[in-house]
């Protein structure tokens, strides 16, 4: 995969180095965004990076275009107002698994249902890392976290499937190890009109990797390589075998009318 040389225009280099830990995947996903934007050649002032709270919530500090850092989980509700008043603005919501699955779960479902013209990049690092590694809705069953020392007692939430069911036009999931798939999904999401959602399973060596004895950044990358399977291969596994893997790939690509289109049609009458 080639590198669009202007990707650096989308980064605020003066704010780097970032605050993320060594081996954290946030930077890989944010770079994926910058690469896609450079490839699509979108002017800086026509772009907004909207974030929530937690590690991923700091991403806006590192981009050279408009940024919005809202309250925890509410980002897509803020983006609803932004989207309808600035329809030409490309909105990228760079959210965490808490933003998407927990405190912002309802807003995520409704943003997808309305089919707002927004691209969500969900950084799913399987825990609340900024606050010290507590479990989140997406933390797998039995995982060790700072609030589940003997293993998480709840089933995990599959945010990508939920968003697909809620009505989004584009849904895909992958990991920070699979960068060509990641960069491609981000680009496809940005090219989608309507709601698009890319779940990026991301490394958190400081908490999730350490607590679950996966290891540091490189080891977590290896874990993603070994523990995830493309969706078609995963589907062929027995129920029992499926327990050992996480699927990645594209779930949905369709072309429902976005919110402003459905709204304006019904206000013309």
């Amino acid at each position, binding site marked *: 995969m080639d590198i669009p040389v202007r990707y650096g225009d989308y980064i605020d280099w003066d*704010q780097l180095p970032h605050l993320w830990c060594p081996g954290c995947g946030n930077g890989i996903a944010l770079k994926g965004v910058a690469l896609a934007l450079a490839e699509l050649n979108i002017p*800086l*002032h*026509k772009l*907004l990076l909207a974030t929530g709270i937690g590690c991923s919530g*700091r991403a*806006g*500090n590192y981009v*050279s*275009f*408009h*940024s*919005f*850092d*809202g*309250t925890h989980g*509410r980002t897509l*509700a*803020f*983006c*609803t*107002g*932004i*989207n*309808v*008043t*600035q329809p*030409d*603005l490309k909105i990228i919501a760079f959210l965490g698994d808490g933003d998407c699955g927990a405190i912002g779960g*309802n*807003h995520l*479902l*409704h943003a997808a249902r309305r089919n707002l013209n927004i691209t969500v990049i969900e950084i799913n690092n399987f825990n609340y890392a900024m606050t010290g590694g507590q479990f989140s809705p997406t933390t797998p069953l039995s995982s060790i976290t700072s609030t589940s020392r003997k293993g998480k007692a709840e089933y995990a939430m599959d945010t990508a499937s939920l968003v697909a069911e809620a009505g989004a036009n584009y849904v895909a999931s992958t990991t920070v190890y699979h960068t060509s798939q990641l960069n491609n999904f981000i680009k496809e999401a940005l090219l989608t009109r309507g709601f698009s959602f890319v779940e990026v399973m991301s490394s958190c060596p400081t908490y999730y990797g350490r607590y679950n004895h996966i290891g540091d950044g490189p080891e977590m990358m290896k874990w993603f390589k070994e523990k995830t399977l493309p969706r078609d291969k995963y589907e062929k596994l027995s129920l029992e075998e499926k327990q050992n893997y996480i699927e990645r790939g594209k779930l949905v690509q369709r072309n429902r009318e976005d919110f402003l289109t459905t*709204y304006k049609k019904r*206000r013309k009458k």
Partner: protein
Amino acid sequence: MKKMFLDGNVAVALGSIRAGARFFAGYPISPVSELAEFCSHEMPKAGGIYVQMEDEIAAIAAVIGASLGGKKAFTATSGPGFSLMQENIGFASMAEVPCVIINGQRFGLSTGVATKPGQSDIMQARWGRHGDQSIIALTPASVQECFDLTLEAFNLAERFSSPVIVLTDATLAHLKERIRVPDPAEIKTVKRKEPQGPPEEYKPYQPDERGIPLLSYFGSEYILKVTGLVHTEKGNVSSDPGVCASLIDRLERKIYDYQEELPPPRYYGEEKAETVLISFGISARAAREGMRRALLEGISSGLIQLQTVWPFPEGAIRRLSSHASKVIVVEMNRGQVTREVERILPEGVEVNSLLRADSEVIYPREVLEKIKEVQ
């Protein structure tokens, strides 16, 4: 100018649209559902947008988003929804986003009585958020004032780059009165200033001489960085104690230091009265009539009707009550404004109150009785 026969809800909505509001987001709630209904069909006619959100948290968030998209925006709710909105009203204060929140107060704590009036969200309007801040809250007492003060609320939001709260109540929301609606050409509206100069030098949170930032909008060539975290003038996150101190100081002073520019209290009755009533909202109507009856009985009395309740108009109240030996605060709660009045008036002034917190409005005869009682 046109005369119209409207209720408080519609007067608020009309005032908003005339003020230039082009975005409404809300969640249905009594007693302001009609306000949302009006916006759902009138907003698109004015070229605006109505969005019905999934809850009140989302409603105020969408309003803040729309304002950052460059449109004047507002929401309307009542106590339960107002509680949910506090989180993002705090965000709007911190990020200095102009917007208007209508709270049609209803009776009681929690779900209370959905269809009956209250005035017990006064302290919540002031202190409902965590952290130090200033806020502007206006209290119309008639359908005319619902129109006028809502219009003014939008102008103040733009001038002060801040959320502004308008407190109506269930009675006022459904009270119909004939009002004067000025033609659009007669209405003076304020719109936030546009940034000037080279875009690369733009700092959204660099305050002007009055402490007000100059926010562009998302989509502008002046790149806007907005966050609820403590931030520098450029809008980048900071935890530097100096940055924290100057930001919080400015957020408070940009409103507090200019409170004389906010809608002043109205004064009715005898000048230099010995007994002065202090009231606001629908209770001020009863207070005015009770005071009028007291005057007819020869009792020296007057009424201070607050149009702005926050920041609390201490100077004006002290001035207007400087000859009074007795003050009676008339309000439909357990004494929220009374405590403020006690705080600001000099010793020697007797502060009484006529309180009602049973879901009923205060009647003029109760006011008259109270005036007589304290003589």
